């Protein structure tokens, strides 16, 4: 079922919180330079999946393989040095540090010595250059999300897990972010994108998986997903509740 040596392979992943199975045998893979969309109703396990891959939670079962190496249970900073990074749904920059310091500390500790990142250029590419000397707490939420992304990119990652980057952006900003993400993927970085905005997902992803109750219920292109009976049921059901 998996292609030859994917960058990331998740197999039968289980994560429990008390009696609740947030992830219940989840399996999927991701190739280098690919953008994979992950969609599903609230509570379907999207963010938990990112938290497990990025080392915030240790998995309770199943395996996570990154570049051929089992990484389940490693600490965040170890995963970062292997080439995995992420953004947060509610952005978590270092609030009292400046934008530049936020990125510089990640470059210094999470970056690869042989592969220095030009922080000025990185900030410019995410439209943060004019804010470089500001404290992160002075930024608005959308700018803080970009700062999360800048911090992730400063560590020269091979895989970035993106948790709802697009929420709260206006259409012009959305378009620029989409273009930027595609550019990042073209440079060989794999992106796992969790997003509620279906248009955004449709524009940037090569492939999507749909989660429900910690399990994958669909895998394929977005156009097929919206015609899939089970996917439609899950989303309509979720909307009834909400």
């Amino acid at each position, binding site marked *: 079922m998996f292609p030859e040596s994917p960058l990331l392979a998740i197999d039968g992943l289980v994560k429990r919180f008390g009696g609740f199975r947030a992830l219940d045998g989840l399996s999927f893979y991701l190739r280098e330079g690919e953008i994979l969309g992950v969609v599903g109703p609230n509570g379907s396990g999207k963010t938990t999946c990112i938290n497990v891959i*990025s*080392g*915030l939670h240790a998995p309770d079962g199943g395996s996570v393989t990154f570049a051929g190496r089992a990484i389940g249970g490693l*600490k*965040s*900073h170890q995963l*970062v*040095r292997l080439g995995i*990074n*992420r953004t*947060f749904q509610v952005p*978590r*920059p*270092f*609030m*009292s*540090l400046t934008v530049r*310091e*936020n990125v*510089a*500390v*990640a470059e*210094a*500790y*999470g*970056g690869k010595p042989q592969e220095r990142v030009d922080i000025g250029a990185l900030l410019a590419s995410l439209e943060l250059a004019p804010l470089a000397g500001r404290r992160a707490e002075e930024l608005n939420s959308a700018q803080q999300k970009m700062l999360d992304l800048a*911090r*992730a990119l400063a*560590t020269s990652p091979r895989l970035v897990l993106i948790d709802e980057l697009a929420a709260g952006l206006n259409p012009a900003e959305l378009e620029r972010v989409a273009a930027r993400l595609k550019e990042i993927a073209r440079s060989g970085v794999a992106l796992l994108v969790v997003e509620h905005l279906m248009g955004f997902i449709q524009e940037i992803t090569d492939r999507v998986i749909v989660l429900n109750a910690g399990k994958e219920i669909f895998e394929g292109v977005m156009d097929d997903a919206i015609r899939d009976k089970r996917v439609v049921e899950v989303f309509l059901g979720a909307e009834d509740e909400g």
Partner: protein
Amino acid sequence: MPRLLRHALFILVPLIAALAIAPAVYGNHLLLFNLIVFMTLAQGINIVYGFTGYLPFGYVGFFGAGAYGFSLAVMHLHASPFAALALGALAALLLGLGLTPLFRLSGAYFAIASLAAALAVLQIVSNPALEHITNGPYGVSLSGVFDPSLAYAVALAILAGTVLLVIWLRNARFGLALQAIREDAISAGMAGINVVRGRVIAWLLAALIAGLTGGVYAWYISVFYPETVFSGEVTVFAIVFALFGGTATILGPILGVAILYGIYNAIGISTPQYFQLVYGLLIMGLVLFLPNGLVSLLRRRGVDVP
């Protein structure tokens, strides 16, 4: 000129020079010595609280461990003051290592647990059952090694080393990493920072500083009771001084000690309850109206405080 060198030249050198000359022009040497002790301890608090966000409410435990390490080495091993100082520092470091599991706790839990640890050490040291080792509640007397002017010089050297360490933290990437941990430990992990190691290093540095200071304090005053060197006031003063000036800066704790210790001596110790009242009100006002210290007043005016 690099910032580190500039800070050393314009903060460290004048400070140490002033305190080195002071005994020649000012008669109250004990006050000057205590000033040095509190500047060092306030910087120690600065390293733990200012840079990593953990408030060690039992910081005095390291000070006391250093003082008793020094004293026991002198009394039982007949060690020279410098060897005894090293053993005092070692005692504080070992206590610090023993307490590293406390870092699993968050904010208030950590503060309470570290306070309990310091009080536990006090209870052990002052217990009459251990009189043959620690002299129990009756305190120690080290008249054999009494040498206040040499002890003063050594205390000054410890302060110099401590301030230099803070200057380095303020300018080096390790200091930035510690601040990142303070701001958000999860994000710090995503910046590739080994959060546990960073915290432990800062903690042990602070323990070492307090242990050395406690040792040199024991040497200088040479006669003291367990309650003297494990007094909760030591922690509180160091915290209040550091907070009043402003943490995560080089100058904040120095200014805090200089100003508040000055007030302390102006109020006088003859009526401790009025002093306690003024101090309590000062602490409350500080938290309610100036939670980021004096330096935040300057920062608001756009001054970059080192």
